[in-house]
């Protein structure tokens, strides 16, 4: 009897246990179904709550925040009676007892934990912005294994935090004990998608070859940018759906990692990080909580706006929203509505057993589904907005918008326990911190502290400054202690975080730290030269400071070491117990960018010599596009000076740190928005609905016609507002003074420019009365409105005092795009805009007299020359270097009608003679760069007007210089080494070599020109506000030269058929590129851009393509050659000449190999023959390299070839493999072999 009772009790216990189910992943399972078999009690009682600070989402503007909601709330998972939470502010994961809310353990990562966690068989998995995938013991939080998903330890500032260059934002999904995740959110940096053995942490497969795929971007225009993994991954059938951040997901083969589809362009203006799926279809975010439904098989859109985030219970779909809609999915992917309930599930909806639980701003409602019909069980009212629900282990867990976790159970409790985290409050007294703050004067920006023994110093720095501090120590226990210490006091990691000195310091980003404090000089490893100079490189130019606590001999040695290093801009000062090193002034070779076109000479060219390809990301995020004008109004471009980037908003101007993106100041105006209304934006701009996919802000000429209304200088930012010109202090943004230089007739100021100590202002806009017809008042079309393009009068003032120096009135109007200065002369065009002149001509009317080009002494206003002939243009540019003046037009997209580029005149300014006057077709405001003029796709000599030519790297012929640009508004701008522009994604042309157009793939460049090189970085403030296109990222960022970074180009090369002198065939590469040896490497098979028409024949057996990210390849020079390869080649034949007479020539042939797979010696062995002669016998790559991913180059000279060159690969064991073929014609006498 007793035995029976025991058995019954055991059975009962088993059954009771069996009702409990974990919620081991976000939305319960790998399909993110939000459905569990857990059957909660019919009545539930609040048992405990815990309150944490509300989450601050990673992204900064409303659209991004809606499209990527992964860290806007706590996203609990539940396993084995524990709730697990990740923290994006304290960089940690915690476990709470599900019955009491008591914290069981916590674990600190090295970066923010932004994506939901996952649990499997007693282990917890998560990723962090530190680029690492962690596996913890669920019982005690101990680390079981961790795997760096990032390919290297390099850091950058991302979303205001020091994180990996490849942050791991692939939200982990688990199936069959395999976890799937990824690192990197910018395809241009490479993307790394993984399947990992959950038990051991071993990699099952890794896809690192898709990031640079040349695919159609939004607007159906191609660029090198595939999916950017960001968001929770999902599994649908045999497909891994990789969240694409702002876009639809991409599908990868679950077993092999092969990319199956990514419908970025076809999807239109939709997409987002949320996806859930069953085996047949998936639902992806649209706007608010609305979804589109897609066919998992091929990614095609099935139903638009199908419903709110759904519960996917196999084929039963329950859509959330203002009401709940239950539907059934059939095998044909048709959806039939079964029932509707008026219960609000605006915030969340889950299914547990036979109940639905709905959350909205008022609370939670439980609904029982019986006989396929809903019945409300109960409603729990809440004072907070409930945003997330989880049902697991007998509990219903609710998460509020403001960071509260509420847990409901099946029994009432005598008193609900309320747990609360400490308020942020810290004080400290520290002489050392006070002295450092006083001596350096630095209280904001990013700071690095090396050596953390002095905790009071750290507390004082936190309490008395707004610095974001990253503190380093060698002692892991100390790091752990300090993390916990500040965490317990409510100080989040954005204010102070702690890192391992050895692992992180060497990979700090350049220029980011305003202040570095070295408390222990031993960290400098005896003043190691590499460490010192590397550390100095991480300091912000323009007076970033290193404070070294040192004395005695060590101090002297450091002083000597710094003197020996002779670092550019370094200035040493020492005092009692310290040395202070300032990084003064600009970076060596850097230059500013002021005015709308770079300078007051309208060159549209930055003199910055630092920025050159390859480029990688220095920082991203951290500021909002809400402070920038809407994109299609084409407001003025940013201006960059002394480490500050000045940019205009609708009613504000703000300054951002060039090196970190940090907002330095923002000045709101009273009426700037009125002053720029109908010029930089109009009634189509809808500020209230940033998520509206309808067209928002139509195209306008904006600053293309009006020019800028602000100028940044070293001392002040000059801003026009109505009749006033404000001087804002460049350091603080505070109003220094306002100048009102007009008179009683002044209605508005027009032109603005600064030349040396002079401020040039336009007094009133010209309104062209000669073109108005009396009594006729018509609404002007945007591109026919010439009334904001010129000023009636120019007033020249001392820019500090505002005292007027002189003024001059226009006969018609001083066209803003043609008021420039250089070498003491003010040049201006006084005439009608070109569109009006064309209109007169069409109407048989003579242009009114008085058109002229003036040379004015800028100091006195004396007319040096007045030219009334050949006055046709609307643009002037000046070359100080060559003393040449260019008259042209300003054709570009979104410019006034009539601005056609058909003619240019260049004048010698010293004699005012015409140097040349030519009909030239062009489509860009002409860029003056040295002795060249660049336009959109073409170039001309400034000295002669002739087209530019360059050497065809393949045949050695002279060919016309040109480049191809894909879709994008905005115009091309130049710097010493680059042309930058939008080309689907961000685009560039490397002026140093012949290789075509490249991309910085993975974010949208501005619709207004925003890719501006200045102060040592390529600045890209987010000038895409109101854009709804699903580009992978929509953010501000900055790029710097990173010699090891990969990039690809579309050379758009067309072979003439002349004999090939030099050629690289990069097998299975995503695009073209020119090597340091000046060899143009063309990808083969052709995948990017126009085909070069070089005939290549290839025979294969067991053909397959392998591609890795070049960062994974060990190579002396060009890892991007051996990173990709083709397996199975038997022979490859390259045509070398299509000339009628062919000569046999001698070639040097370099063959590139690497072993991309884990193989042992003897597993892949093959012979290689060239032109029928065996040149390699039993080549075994791994045997020669000793490890995989190591480049092996075999070089052969004296290969004689005529019309074609043939390479044969003959396998002895395994399959053949080849990465690249490089041909160089040698300087030996040729032999004539054939004549057609």
């Amino acid at each position: 009897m007793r035995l029976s009772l025991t058995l019954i009790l055991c059975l009962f216990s088993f059954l009771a246990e069996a009702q409990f189910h974990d919620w081991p992943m976000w939305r319960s399972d790998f399909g993110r179904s939000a459905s569990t078999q857990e059957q909660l009690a019919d009545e539930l009682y609040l048992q405990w709550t815990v309150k944490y600070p509300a989450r601050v989402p990673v992204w900064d503007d409303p659209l991004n925040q809606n499209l990527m909601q992964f860290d806007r709330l706590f996203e609990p998972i539940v396993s084995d009676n524990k709730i697990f939470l990740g923290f994006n502010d304290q960089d940690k994961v915690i476990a709470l007892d599900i019955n009491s809310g008591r914290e069981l353990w916590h674990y600190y990562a090295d970066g923010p934990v932004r994506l939901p966690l996952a649990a499997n068989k007693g282990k917890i998995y998560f990723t962090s912005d530190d680029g690492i995938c962690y596996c913890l013991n669920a019982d005690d939080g101990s680390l079981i294994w961790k795997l760096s998903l990032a390919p290297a330890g390099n850091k950058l500032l991302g979303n205001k935090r020091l994180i990996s260059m490849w942050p791991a934002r692939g939200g982990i999904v688990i199936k069959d004990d395999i976890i799937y995740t990824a690192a990197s959110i910018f395809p241009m940096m490479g993307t790394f998608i993984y399947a990992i053995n959950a038990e051991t942490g071993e990699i099952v497969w890794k896809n690192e070859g898709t990031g640079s795929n040349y695919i159609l971007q939004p607007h159906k225009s191609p660029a090198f940018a595939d999916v950017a993994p960001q968001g929770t991954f999902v599994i649908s059938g045999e497909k891994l759906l990789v969240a694409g951040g702002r876009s639809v997901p991409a599908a990868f083969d679950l077993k092999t990692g092969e990319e199956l589809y990514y419908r970025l362009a076809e999807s239109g203006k939709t997409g987002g990080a949320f996806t859930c799926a069953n085996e047949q279809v998936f639902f992806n975010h649209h706007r608010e909580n609305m979804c589109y439904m897609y066919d998992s098989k091929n990614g095609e859109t099935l139903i638009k706006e199908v419903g709110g985030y759904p519960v996917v219970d196999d084929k039963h779909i329950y859509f959330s929203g203002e009401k709940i809609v239950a539907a059934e999915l059939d095998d044909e992917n048709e959806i039939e509505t079964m029932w509707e309930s008026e219960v609000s599930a605006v915030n969340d909806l889950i299914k547990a057993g036979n109940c639905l639980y709905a959350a909205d701003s008022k609370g939670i409602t439980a609904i029982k589904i019986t006989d396929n019909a809903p019945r409300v069980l109960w409603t729990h009212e809440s004072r907070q907005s409930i945003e997330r629900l989880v049902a697991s282990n007998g509990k219903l867990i609710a998460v509020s918008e403001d960071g509260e976790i509420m847990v409901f159970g099946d029994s009432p409790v005598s008193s609900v326990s309320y747990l609360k985290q400490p308020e942020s409050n810290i004080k400290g007294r520290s002489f050392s911190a006070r002295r450092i703050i006083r001596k350096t004067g630095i209280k904001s920006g990013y700071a690095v502290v090396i050596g953390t023994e002095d905790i009071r110093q750290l507390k004082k720095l936190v309490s008395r400054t707004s610095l974001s501090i990253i503190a380093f120590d060698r002692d892991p226990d100390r790091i752990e202690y300090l993390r916990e210490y500040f965490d317990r006091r409510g100080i989040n990691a954005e204010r102070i975080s702690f890192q391992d000195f050895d692992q992180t310091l060497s990979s700090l980003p350049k220029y980011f730290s305003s202040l570095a404090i070295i408390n222990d000089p031993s960290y400098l490893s005896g003043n190691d030269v590499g460490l010192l100079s590397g550390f100095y490189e991480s300091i912000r130019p323009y007076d970033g400071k290193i404070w070294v606590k040192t004395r005695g001999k060590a101090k002297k040695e450091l002083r000597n070491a710094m003197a020996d290093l002779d670092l550019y801009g370094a200035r040493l000062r020492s005092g009692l117990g310290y040395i202070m090193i300032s990084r003064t002034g600009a970076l060596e070779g850097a230059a500013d960018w002021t005015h709308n076109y770079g300078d007051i000479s309208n060159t549209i060219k930055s003199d910055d010599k630092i920025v050159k390809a390859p480029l990688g990301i220095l920082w991203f995020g951290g500021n909002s596009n809400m402070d920038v004008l809407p994109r299609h109004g084409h407001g003025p471009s940013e201006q960059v000076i002394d480490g500050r980037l000045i940019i205009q908003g609708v009613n504000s101007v703000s300054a951002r740190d060039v090196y970190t993106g940090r907002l330095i100041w923002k000045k709101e105006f009273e009426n700037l928005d009125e002053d720029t209304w109908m010029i930089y934006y109009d009634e189509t701009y809808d500020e209230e609905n940033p998520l509206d996919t309808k067209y928002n802000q139509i195209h306008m000429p904006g600053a293309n016609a009006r020019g800028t209304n602000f100028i940044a200088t070293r001392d002040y930012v000059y801003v026009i507002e109505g009749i006033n010109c404000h001087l804002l202090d460049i350091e603080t943004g505070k109003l220094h003074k306002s100048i009102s230089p007009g008179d009683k007739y002044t209605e508005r100021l027009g032109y603005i420019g600064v030349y040396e100590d002079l401020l040039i202002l336009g007094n009133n806009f010209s309104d062209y009365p000669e073109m108005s017809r009396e009594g006729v008042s018509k609404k002007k079309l945007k591109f026919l409105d010439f009334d904001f393009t010129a000023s009636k009068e120019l007033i020249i003032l001392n820019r500090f005092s505002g005292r007027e120096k002189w003024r001059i009135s226009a006969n018609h109007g001083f066209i803003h795009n043609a008021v420039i200065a250089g070498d003491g002369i003010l040049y201006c065009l006084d005439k009608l805009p070109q569109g009006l002149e064309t209109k007169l001509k069409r109407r048989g009317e003579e242009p009114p007299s008085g058109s002229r080009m003036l040379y004015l002494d800028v100091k006195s206003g004396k007319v040096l020359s007045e030219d009334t002939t050949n006055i046709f243009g609307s643009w002037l540019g000046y070359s100080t270097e060559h003393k040449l003046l260019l008259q042209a037009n300003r054709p570009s997209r979104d410019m006034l009608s009539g601005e056609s580029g058909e003619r240019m005149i260049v004048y010698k300014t010293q004699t005012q003679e015409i140097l040349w006057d030519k009909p030239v077709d062009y489509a860009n405001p002409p860029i003056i760069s040295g002795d060249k003029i660049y336009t959109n796709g073409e170039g001309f000599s400034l000295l002669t007007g002739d087209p530019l030519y360059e050497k065809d790297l393949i045949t050695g012929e002279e060919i016309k210089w040109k480049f191809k640009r894909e879709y994008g508004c905005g115009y091309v701008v130049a710097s010493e080494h680059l042309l930058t522009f939008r080309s689907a994604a961000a685009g560039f042309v490397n002026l140093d070599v012949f290789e075509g157009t490249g991309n910085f793939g993975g974010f949208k460049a501005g619709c207004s020109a925003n890719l501006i090189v200045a102060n040592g970085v390529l600045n890209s403030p987010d000038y895409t506000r109101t854009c709804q296109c699903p580009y992978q990222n929509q953010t501000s960022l900055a790029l710097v030269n990173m010699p090891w970074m990969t990039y690809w180009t579309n050379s758009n090369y067309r072979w003439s058929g002349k004999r090939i002198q030099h050629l690289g065939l990069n097998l299975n590469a995503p695009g073209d590129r020119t090597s340091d040896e000046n060899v143009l490497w063309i990808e083969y098979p052709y995948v990017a851009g126009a085909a070069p028409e070089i005939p290549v024949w290839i025979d294969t057996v067991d053909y397959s393509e392998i591609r890795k990210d070049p960062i994974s390849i060990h190579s002396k020079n060009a890892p991007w050659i051996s990173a990709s390869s083709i397996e199975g080649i038997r022979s490859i034949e390259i045509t070398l000449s299509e000339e009628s007479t062919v000569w046999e020539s001698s070639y040097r042939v370099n063959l590139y190999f690497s072993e991309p797979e884990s193989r042992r010696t003897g597993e892949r062995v093959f012979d290689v023959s060239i032109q029928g002669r065996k040149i390699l016998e039993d080549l075994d790559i791994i045997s020669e390299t000793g490890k995989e991913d190591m480049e092996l180059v075999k070089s052969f000279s004296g290969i004689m070839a005529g019309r074609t060159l043939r390479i044969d690969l003959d396998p002895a064991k395994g399959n053949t493999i080849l990465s690249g073929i490089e041909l160089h014609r040698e300087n030996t006498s040729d032999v004539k072999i054939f004549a057609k």
Partner: protein
Amino acid sequence: MKRDYYRIIVLAGLVSLACTTRVSEWVLLNAPANQYSLIYFHQNPIDETVRKQNQKVVDGIEMANIQFIRVVRSEIPEPFYGLYYGGRLFSKYKIADELKGLCSSPLREVIAAELMAGKLCVMLYLKTGIKEKDEMGLNALRCAIESSPFGKIITMHELSRNSKDEYHLASQLLNVEDDLNDIQEPMLFGIFGRFKALEPLLGKGITEENIHLMIDYFTAECSCLIKDALPGTDILFSGKWDNPQTALLNKIIDDNPSLGY
């Protein structure tokens, strides 16, 4: 043994097609006409009669580059139809009957057929009814066409600005620029693509030189900038633009390559 064959194929021609194609052909092939909006403004709920009347209007403008929208406005005394293009009000109509022939007319049918037949452009001459003024421009037009190497592939039509049959066409042409309605001068519109009208030559501006410049535009290589910012105003037309005949221009240029540059 499976043998794969790859050759870097000649896609360049396709890729670059748009850049060597002439403006007239590129616009016909690639540039759908911009949409007009016909908006019915009303204050009160519409009754069955108005609903049917509007349905008739919608049926009448089917296939044309226009959309019909209903807008409730509290401040309007009487309902009316407004014809909008590019955010600009072109015309107001009190009753639906006034909309007859809004999107089609005999002359438009003829012009569209000529464009589809591969003509370079159609020169549409809008007359004032003042003989002396009209004749001068017509003479210039005839001479220009006669002297142009492309004259054979250009057609010309005359239209009175007071034409009843072509009332809507004339009205739309007079809206191509905002002050044309007030100018009593003959006007010459170059029609191309899918019924796009360039800003007109006008009065004394209708000269052989200006006409040749207009022809030069139609025969120019279609640059990206032209594609991005096509000049001209679309005229309402109900018709299909699928499968036009090969541009006659290409043969002329093939036969006389010097004309192509």
